[in-house]
């Protein structure tokens, strides 16, 4: 029965957990490890959860804590809350540009967002959790979540704009010398 529940949990959540892990670690292999580690912690301790309905947020919270724990071993956390006011809405790429982008590029842009903002932003874009749930999971006040979403979205727009511009510059006109060298 316990293994049945475990299998159901894995099937329901391993992909979104991996996506969250990928945005945090910026590395597919580390993200896979972090996702596995989270489920193994559930296998050891999750049975003690009193409310089965809380399993999903428990998994995401645990994954985030494990990420922080692992990262703290390597470096000091930089406080990014005092970096100044949110910049005014930067020029955002058009929606159809985002839609036309490869999903991997959008995830790469997300990974360029500062880590403090990246965690709430990824959870927000997964659309599975409300801002209140995100605040609980990250153990920060609701106002902080809103603020981080605002800053995070600004950084994401800027990163997407950079990627779009870099993509455009890769298209070389045929009448340029560099184009002739390639042919």
């Amino acid at each position, binding site marked *: 029965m316990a293994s049945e529940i475990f299998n159901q949990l*894995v099937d329901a959540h391993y992909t979104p957990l991996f996506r969250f892990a990928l945005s945090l670690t910026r590395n597919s292999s580390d993200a*896979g490890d972090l*996702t596995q580690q989270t489920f*193994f912690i559930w296998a050891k301790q999750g*049975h*003690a959860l009193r409310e089965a309905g809380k399993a999903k947020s428990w998994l995401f919270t645990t994954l985030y804590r494990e990420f922080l724990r692992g990262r703290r071993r390597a470096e000091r956390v930089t406080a990014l809350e005092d970096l100044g006011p949110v910049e005014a809405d930067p020029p955002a790429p058009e929606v159809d540009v*985002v839609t036309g982008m490869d999903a991997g590029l959008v995830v790469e842009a997300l990974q360029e967002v500062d880590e403090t903002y990246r965690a709430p932003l990824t959870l927000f874009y997964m659309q599975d959790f*409300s801002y209140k749930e995100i605040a609980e999971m990250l153990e920060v006040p609701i106002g902080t979540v809103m603020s981080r979403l*605002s800053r995070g979205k600004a950084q994401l*727009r800027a990163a997407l704009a950079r990627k779009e511009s870099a993509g455009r510059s890769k298209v070389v006109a045929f009448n340029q010398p560099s184009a002739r060298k390639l042919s």
Partner: protein
Amino acid sequence: MNNEEAKFILQGYRPNGTDAGDAAFRAALEQVQRDPALREWFARQQAFDAAVSAQLNAMPAPAGLREAILAGGRVTTPDRTQASWWRSPAWLAAAASVAVIFATTLALWPKPAAADTALADYVLADAGKDEMHGGHGTESLQAMLGDPANRLSRGLPISFTALRKDGCRTVTYEGREVLEVCFNRGGVWFHAYIGRRADFPALAATPAFLDKEGMSVAAWADDSHVYLVASKAGRAALQQLL
């Protein structure tokens, strides 16, 4: 609420509309309805968020990750104790009280548990004597015990008196009668011992197990009878009967 405040709050409004019923967004959404510039900003914001969200949620997990997690989960043993509860002074005090109560109760109890372990020992010894067995008991009882659909711990519709009258093998343990019948389930032989509950009041309803010298026994009780089932097939085989 001005437009800047509304924008700040609406950053947390998910593009799939899940937050439509959240009162925290109500005032900001009303402001959106009133102000055309804010409405345009909100429409752009929602379209952008929806596009990013769709791309993120299209990202697949690597092949083999699911299987690796499932395989790892199968070999991960659950912790039966939580890491932090025992660190709490309140829990520690409660645990100490329970330990004192338990030790006192154990010291004052008239020691039936030892008698039941002795009964289980007796059953193990008796069941090990091959020459004593070989199809004693009524056929209907053997058929009932041998039926894989019957979970023995859920109770058996039997009468101690009727079984003894029908010629079930009877052994005497410390002056108390115990009936014995062999039965086969799925090719495995078991020896069932049935006593009167009144003669063995300390046996619990929850099955308990004892393993000794290649034999295992399961013991439990219902309102009228106590049951001990022994086998050389091991504890797992006994658990399947229950």
